[in-house]
């Protein structure tokens, strides 16, 4: 189980949103391990094993990244760009979190290789749909029974 370390990486600066997201996902036992990072800079350190996360193994990839777009320091688009530009991380599925259907950044994200987005608050329903869009049923199916 090489992926047992991290199931889902949540990059979200708003603590309330983060709490609601984590609560919604955990409540349905969808993720047994969620790593919550507060901004894009921390997310990049984590993903690329730099800074505070330099002792991490880059091959220990999260199963999916839930990425907020509007964040201080490094925003979601920059994180997305870096992850998609790197061979080692390109395959990690990314679900973008946005406040509005009308967000023009969502279109940019699609252009940059994102296949799905969730309008916050993140709940069970819209998370399931986003995962379905990505075609990653296994993310739910594989892990959910183990932790039930």
């Amino acid at each position, binding site marked *: 189980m090489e992926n047992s370390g991290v199931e889902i990486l949540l990059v979200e600066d708003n603590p309330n949103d983060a709490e609601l997201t984590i609560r919604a996902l955990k409540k349905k036992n969808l993720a047994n391990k969620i790593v919550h990072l507060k901004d894009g800079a921390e997310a990049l350190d984590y993903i690329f094993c730099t800074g505070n996360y330099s002792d991490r193994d880059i091959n220990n990839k999260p199963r999916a990244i839930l990425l907020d777009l509007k964040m201080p320091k490094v925003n979601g688009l920059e994180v997305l760009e870096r992850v998609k530009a790197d061979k080692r991380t390109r395959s990690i599925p990314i679900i973008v979190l946005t406040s509005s259907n009308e967000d023009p950044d969502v279109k940019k994200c699609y252009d940059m290789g994102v296949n799905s987005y969730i309008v*916050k608050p993140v709940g069970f329903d819209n998370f399931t749909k986003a995962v379905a869009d990505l075609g990653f049923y296994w993310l739910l199916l594989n892990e959910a029974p183990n932790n039930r």
Partner: protein
Amino acid sequence: MKDRFDTITIDFESLFESAPNMYIAVSPDLKIIGASDAYLDATGSKRHKILGSDLFEICTYLNTCTPDETSEMELPDAFQYVLKRKESMTLDVQKLLLPAGRDKTTERYWNMHLIPVLFEKQQILCVILRVEDVTEMELVRIEAKVQTARNTELEAAEKIHLRNLKESEARFIKVFNLSPAPLFMTKVADGKLVLVNSAFEKFTGINSAATNGKTLMELGILDAPNIADLNKQLAGDHSNDIEFCVTTKSGSTRKMLATSEIVEVDNMLCHLVAMLDITVRKNHENDLMQSNHFLDTILEHLPGMVFVKDAETLNYIRINKAGELLTGISQKDIAGKNNADIYPAEHAEEITRGERELIERRLPSAAVEELIKTGGSDKWLHTRRIPVYEDGKPVYLVGISEDVTEQKKQQEAILQLNKELEAFSYSVSHDLRAPLRAVTGYAQMLDEDYAHVLDSEGKRLLHTISDNAEKMGALIDNLLTFSRLGRKELTKRETDMNGLVTRALAEISKSTEHVATIKVNELHQVMSDPDLMTQVLINLIENAIKYTSRKPNPEIEISSYVDGSEVVYCVSDNGAGFDMKYYDKLFGVFQRLHAVDEYAGTGVGLAIVQRIIARHGGRVWAKGKVNEGATFCFALPISNTK
């Protein structure tokens, strides 16, 4: 007696010889026995050479005698006659050729008198030939004869000429009378009429008999200033473009154009004048001049620039005052200027190319935006160019330019404002929602995790918090939709409105349950943005459903009709209706005519409808009566171009 006779004889001989007349004396056998000096002189002979010689042998010229047509006899016969009959004989006007120097002869006419000299009245002693030279007389007579002959000829010619003249005059009179143009002839001397034609009679209403010997003024055809004017023009060099005014019998004043010619009639010099009534033409010319002046005035005072260019060279011909101000080039300097003088170098060539294409394609241009060089700051123009053709050939290119510099600035300001608004909307959507999410989310957490410790009042308060947070979310959504509509690009196409209604109803049924009977009539097609139009229908139908929800038999009808250049669509219901006195609040943002607890809503729906229709160039309106339903209509232009 005998002596006396001898003396006399001598005298006679010398007398004979020295006589001033021409005499020659011959014996009965025609030998010359004497000749007067005059005769010798006239014939160039010597006495001693001819005396004793035969008359006809020595005087050979006598053989050239050709008698006059009146003479009965030739000279030799005359001698025989005289010798035989012993009577005098006269041969009148004998033409003969006298020697005159070497090999030359001269033609003379002689009257010859043969007189026998008788001895005792019995025997002929000699015959005296007395010659009278009548050459001068004869020549005069011949000349007179020739003259007479010539005169006869001339007379004959004159006759023919006269006949021709009469014929020609008859022809002239015929043409004169047939001419559709009024013609008249006046004496140069006193201006009295000599002749008028029937067209003149008809035109002036005056019988030709009444015109004879009268002047045009006496007949009341021309007044004093006009006659003076006419006479001045008749006397002038330009007798082809005479213009004057005449008064007809009916009293109307007509403007005439005339040509005149001086002719001689019965030894009188006359003006022959042909007139043409140019009143209508003149009036047209005046009208044209007036209308030109009128147009010129408009042109000059138009606030926009108007320019005229030569279609071939594309050089400017004229501009109006506004153009002068705009280009900084005066009206008198504009002639010959071209695009390079008006537009910045980088645009001039392209504009010239466009103009040529326009002339070739024979189409007026759409209004194009272009930058113009001016003395001071650059100006933006909206220019429309129209090629003008005469007889199918391009002659002018006319252009009308409007100074849109201010609009352009405002437009840029609006664009800037829109950008700011977009940023604002973005910020609203993100930043206002985050706390709202927290409110709803945490209220939900409280509900889920602590419901057991809350009493019913606590739960009611909690749900009120959640409900209001959700309403605020809806408000934010609607507001964002509304502001987005102002910026969204329209993509119009032929729209099947029935299809859109079906789509709208499907959309509504996803979120709203209702029992209303919705009657959809056959709807007209129109050019519109289908997505936005669906939004309009959703909002109107949703409203109708909402406000009929408290009626026992809610009914909604959707219909359309054509009104002039518009298609009008109406959604009517039998619901709560509204009071027309609040009509002006109907389409305002966040304006509501009903309490929220009566009918839920944010007050943005109709504002959105109005904005979408306005962006389509249409208009919206409504009719309603409290508790008796409402009808909401919108009209879209039929020729709704893209």
